[in-house]
C-alpha cells in the first residue's frame, strides 16, 4: 500500500464523515427540538425510531438502507431523480454514517434544550425580541455546548462506522472504502498487518483528537458565563 493510498483513505473518511455531519446535525437538532419542546401523539414512536440505529445490529440497519435507498429502493429512486445516487457510492457511505451517528447527535442536543431555562426566553420576549431573535441570541448560544458535543461525538462515530456501510455500499477502494473498511481488508490479507497498524494509529488519533476538541470547545463556551 502506497502513501498515496493511505492519504486517499483518510481523506475519503473525513469527506464521508463531514458530509454526514453537514446533513445530520441540523436534522438531529430539529428532531431534538421537537422531542424536547413538544408533546404529540407519535412522540414515543419518533423517539424509538431515532434510537433504533443504536440498538439494532448495524448489518440490519445497512440492510434497511439497501432496501430503501438502494438502486431499486423507492427513496433511492426518488433521490436519483434529483441527481443524488447512493448505491455503491461514497454518498451512500455518508448516508450510512449519518444514520448510525444520528442517535448520538440527538441525545446531548435534546438534553441541553431540555435543561435550558425557558424563563430566559420569556425575559427576552418582554424586552422586545421576536421569535427568531430569541432563538439566535438566547436559545442557540446556550444550547451550543450540547450541539457541539453531539456533533463531535457523531463525527467520531461516523469515522468508525463499519457494519451498516459495508452492508449498504460494500467495500470499494477509492469509493466507499473508509478507514475501518480498509483496516478490515488489510487484516484479511497475509501481508497487511503493517499497513493496518498505520491506519489503526491514524483512526485512534482522529478519535482522540475529536474528543479533545469537543472538551476544549465545551470548556471555552462554559467559561464565557463565568469570565
Amino acid at each position, binding site marked *: 500500500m502506497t502513501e498515496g493510498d493511505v492519504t486517499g483513505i483518510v481523506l475519503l473518511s473525513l469527506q464521508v464523515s463531514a458530509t454526514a455531519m453537514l446533513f445530520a446535525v441540523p436534522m438531529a437538532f430539529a428532531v431534538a427540538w421537537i422531542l424536547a419542546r413538544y408533546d404529540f401523539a407519535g412522540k414515543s414512536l419518533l423517539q424509538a425510531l431515532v434510537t433504533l440505529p443504536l440498538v439494532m445490529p448495524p448489518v440490519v440497519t445497512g440492510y434497511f438502507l439497501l432496501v430503501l435507498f438502494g438502486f431499486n429502493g423507492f427513496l433511492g429512486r426518488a433521490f436519483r431523480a434529483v441527481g443524488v445516487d447512493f448505491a455503491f457510492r461514497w454518498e451512500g457511505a455518508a448516508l450510512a454514517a449519518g444514520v448510525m451517528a444520528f442517535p448520538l447527535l440527538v441525545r446531548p442536543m435534546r438534553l441541553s434544550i431540555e435543561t435550558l431555562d425557558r*424563563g430566559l426566553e*420569556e425575559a*427576552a*420576549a*418582554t424586552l*422586545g*425580541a421576536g421569535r427568531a431573535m430569541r432563538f439566535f*441570541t438566547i436559545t442557540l448560544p446556550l444550547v451550543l455546548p450540547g450541539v457541539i458535543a453531539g456533533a463531535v461525538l457523531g463525527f467520531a462515530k461516523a469515522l468508525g462506522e463499519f457494519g451498516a456501510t459495508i452492508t449498504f455500499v460494500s467495500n470499494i477502494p477509492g469509493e466507499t472504502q473508509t478507514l475501518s473498511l480498509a483496516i478490515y481488508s488489510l487484516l484479511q490479507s497475509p501481508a497487511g498487518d503493517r499497513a493496518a497498524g498505520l491506519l489503526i494509529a491514524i483512526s485512534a488519533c482522529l478519535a482522540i483528537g475529536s474528543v479533545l476538541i469537543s472538551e476544549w470547545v465545551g470548556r471555552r463556551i462554559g467559561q464565557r*458565563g463565568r*469570565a
Partner: protein
Amino acid sequence: MSLEVRIHSRLGSFEIAAEFEAGAGVTALFGHSGSGKTSILKMIAGLVRPQSGRIMAEGRTLFDSDTGTDLAPPKRRIGMVFQDARLFPHMSVGRNLTYGRWAGNRGSGADFRRITELLGIEALLDRYPATLSGGEMQRVAIGRALLADPALLLMDEPLASLDQERKREILPYLEEVRDEMGLPIVYVSHEVDEVARLADTLVLLSDGKVLGSGDAVEMFSKLEFGPALGRHEASSLLSGTISGIDAQYGLCEISLSEENRLFLVSERAQVGDRLRMRVKARDVALSLKAPEGVSVRNVLPATVRDFARDESPFVEIVLDVGGQALRARITRHAFDALGIRPGLPVFAMIKSVAIGQRMLSGRR
C-alpha cells in the same frame, strides 16, 4: 387610567377572575402564595393567555377575547422583572442591559447613564451575571427592563429570593425608580412591609379573586381587610412632612397636620421630606386623659371612628388623627373598661422606637 385588567381563566380547579384598574405610581397586587398574583402578571405581560377578558394599557388593547386581540409579548412594551432576575448568563451586564435596544429594537428613549446611575450598577457593566450578588443581579434586571423603554413595569416579587440584608439594600432603589421614572408599576408581593412602603394603590387578592382594591392608605385602615393583611401585621399608614431635626437626641419631628407632631428616629431624613410611616396597630396604646410622666413621646389627640369587637381577646379600633386613619389594637378588657365608642375623644400613644427606620419611606 393606565392599566385596566379584567380576566377570567380556569386552570384545573383553580380559577382566576380578577378585575382591577391601576393608575400612576405603584399598584401592589397583594396576596398569599397561590392567590394567583404571578399568573395575573404573566397574563398582563402576554406570557400566559387568559381564557377570556380584556387587558388595556395606556389606551392600547393588549388582549381582548371579544375581538380576538392578543398582542405577542414583544409587541406589548411591558417590562417585567422576575423573582429570579433571569439575566442572560452568556452576556456581560452591559449586553444584558442593552438587550432591549440591540435585540428588541427598543429603548431609544431610555437614558442609559441615568438609569445605571439610579440603580448604582455603572461599575458592573463588564462583569458576567454569575459573578454578581443576588442584590446586584436584581438591580441589573430592573435596569434591563427599564432600558427597554416600557410603558408599564411589572415586578414579580423582586425581593423574594433575597435575604433581609439585600432587601434593605434594594428597597431604596425601588423607591428611586418609583419616584424618578414616572412609570406605572405593578408590584406583586406577599410581604406587608414592602407593600406598605411602596404601594400607592393596593389590590388585595385571595384565591384568584379580588377582595378589594383602592388607595393603599385607605385600604390599610379598613377593618374588613385585617385578616387578608395579616392579624399581626395590621397597621396603618400615616403620612407627614419632616418639620425639624433634633440632632442632639437623634430625633426628627414630623408634622402630620398643623397640630399633630410625631418624633421619630431617622438618620437619613431632611427637613421638607415627605414621609410615609407604617404604624402597627399593636404598637398603639390609648388613654382617655392626656397622659403625664410617661416615656412615650408621641401622644396624638384622636377620635374613635370605628371598631371591630368579637369574642377574641382583642378589639381592633380605627381612630381619626387629624383626618388620617390610625389603627389600634387593645384588649377587649381595656376596651370595655375605657368605654370606647365611636366619637369618643382619646389620646393615642405610639412609642418612637416602634416606628423603625425601615418603616419609613421618603418621597420628594
